[in-house]
C-alpha cells in the first residue's frame, strides 16, 4: 500500500515537472504569436526590411547558417572521425576536451574573436565574417556528435569489415559512417538549428542590412540582429515587427528540431 502511494506521488511530481516545462514553451509561443499578430502577414515574406518585411533577413540568416554548415560539417566530421577511430591516448583526449570547452564558450566571445580576426583587417562588417563566426560555433557541436554517434557503432562491425580484407579507412567510409548516418544527420540538423538562432556571433561580424543583398562582402541581413535592433526602436510598428520576426524565428528553429527528432524516432 505504501509503495503504491509513493509511486503515485513520484508519478504526479514527474508529470507536474513535465507540464511546467511545456507550459513555458506554450507560453513563449502564445506570447510571441499574440504580440506579433499585428504585423504577421504574408507580405513579411515578400518585402525586405526597408519596406517593412523580413524577406531579406530570413534569407540572410539562412545563407550564413548554410555556409557555416558547408564549411563546418566536413571539418567537424573529420575531426570526430579522428577522435573516435584513430586518436588514442593523451593527444586525442586533449583535443576532445578542447572541443567540449569550445562548445560552451560564450557566443559573444566568438563574435569578438572573429571581429578582431576578420572584420578589423577587412575594414568593415561583412557576411563572410558572420558565416565564419557561426562555423566556429558549429564545429565543436559536429565534432561531439560524430564522436558520440560513431561510439555507438558496435566494434564487431569494424572487425567484420577488417576480416573481409578491408583497410581501416575503407571500413570507416563504407560501413561505419553508413551505420551511424541517422544519428549523424540528426546531429547536423540540430547543430544547424542551434546556429540559425544565434545573435551574439553576428552582432559585430555580419551586422544586419535593411536591403536585399547577396553580396557577402558587405553588411549582411540577419534576422536575429534585426530583432535586437528593432526591439530598441522607439516606434510601435518596429517593435511589432520584432515580435513577428521572433515568432517566425522560433517556428523555424522548432521545425528543424522536430524534423531532427523525427529522424531519430523513426529509425534510431
Amino acid at each position: 500500500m505504501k509503495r503504491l502511494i509513493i509511486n503515485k506521488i513520484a508519478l504526479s511530481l514527474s508529470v507536474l515537472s513535465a507540464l511546467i516545462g511545456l507550459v513555458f514553451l506554450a507560453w513563449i509561443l502564445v506570447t510571441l504569436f499574440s504580440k506579433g499578430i499585428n504585423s504577421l502577414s504574408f507580405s513579411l515574406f515578400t518585402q525586405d526590411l526597408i519596406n517593412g518585411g523580413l524577406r531579406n533577413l530570413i534569407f540572410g540568416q539562412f545563407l550564413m547558417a548554410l555556409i557555416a554548415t558547408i564549411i563546418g560539417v566536413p571539418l567537424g566530421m573529420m575531426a570526430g572521425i579522428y577522435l573516435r577511430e584513430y586518436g588514442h591516448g593523451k593527444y586525442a583526449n586533449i583535443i576532445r576536451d578542447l572541443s567540449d570547452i569550445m562548445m560552451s564558450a560564450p557566443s559573444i566571445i566568438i563574435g569578438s574573436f572573429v571581429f578582431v580576426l576578420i572584420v578589423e583587417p577587412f575594414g568593415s562588417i561583412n557576411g563572410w565574417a558572420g558565416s565564419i563566426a557561426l562555423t566556429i560555433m558549429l564545429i565543436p557541436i559536429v565534432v561531439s556528435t560524430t564522436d558520440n554517434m560513431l561510439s555507438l557503432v558496435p566494434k564487431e562491425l569494424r572487425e567484420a569489415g577488417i576480416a573481409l580484407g578491408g583497410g581501416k579507412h575503407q571500413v570507416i567510409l563504407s560501413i561505419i559512417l553508413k551505420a551511424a548516418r541517422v544519428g549523424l544527420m540528426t546531429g547536423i540538423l540540430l547543430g544547424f538549428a542551434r546556429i540559425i538562432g544565434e545573435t551574439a556571433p553576428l552582432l559585430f561580424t555580419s551586422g544586419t542590412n535593411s536591403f536585399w543583398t547577396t553580396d557577402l562582402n558587405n553588411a549582411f541581413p540577419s534576422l536575429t540582429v534585426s530583432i535586437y535592433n528593432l526591439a530598441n526602436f522607439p516606434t510601435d510598428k518596429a517593435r511589432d515587427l520584432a515580435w513577428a520576426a521572433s515568432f517566425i524565428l522560433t517556428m523555424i528553429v522548432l521545425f528543424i528540431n522536430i524534423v531532427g527528432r523525427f529522424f531519430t524516432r523513426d529509425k534510431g
Partner: protein
Amino acid sequence: MAKKLIMDIKDFSFRYAGAEKPSLMSINLPVHKNKVTAMIGPSGCGKSTLLRALNRIHDLYPGHEYQGKINLLNSSSGENENILDIKKENDFIKLRQRVGMIFQKPTPFPMSIFDNVAYGLKLAGIKNKTILEEKVVSALQGSAIWTEVKDRLKEDAMGLSGGQQQRLCIARAVALRPEVLLLDEPTSALDPISTGAIEELVTELKKDISIVIVTHNMQQASRLSDYTAFMYIGKLIEYNKTDKIFLNPKEKLTEDYVTGRFG
C-alpha cells in the same frame, strides 16, 4: 593419405597490450585441411584469443605481443608462411581474404543483401558486374540462404532474422573463397533451428574450406568437429580426434570438463 595441415600453430604465446601476463602460453596446435577443428574450454581460457590470432584481427588494436609461429600453407607453392611475420597492410588484407572470420553476433552491414556479399569481392578488386553477380549468387547458394533471399537481394540486410543474418555473414566470407574459416561461437546468439541450419552448413562447407570453430556448446563440438582442442587458462591441455577427447580423454581436466564437472 598423408595428413595435410593447412595451419600449424607452433609454440605460440600471446600477450594483450598492457597486460601483465600472457593470455596464451606455448600453444602447439595443428589445423587439418578440410576438417573441422573445435576449440572448447571454460570462459576466459583463451580460445577466442587464439582464434583471433589466426587472421591477426588483434592487430586492429595496437600493442599486442606475439611469440612463436603460426604457419599457413600456401597451397600453390606447398610452402609454409608464418603469418606472424606479416607487417604490411597489403599482406594483412591478403591474409584476411585467405582466412575468413564469423563472429558471435551476426554483423550484417547497413546495406542491401547483395551489397553485403559483394562487399569483400569489391575490396578484392572485382569490378566486372557479371562476375560479381555470379560470385554473389553462388556464395548465397553455397551458404543455404539463397532460396530465402533470392527475391529480395536489393532489400536491407538488417531486415533478415538473426539466423539468416548469420548465414548471410557466412556467405559474405565464403564469397572470397577463403582457405580457412574461423567461427567464433557462431550460434550462441541463435535459436535451435537456426543453429541447426548453421551446423549443417558448416559440415557442407568443409569440403572446400578448413574450419576452426570456438564453441561453448560441447554437444556442438562433438557433433560438428573432427578434431577438438581443450584449453584451460591460456594453455592447450589436450588435442586429439574429437571422439577420443569426448570418449577417452587422457587428461583428468579434460574429462572433468567434457563430463560437465566444471566450466
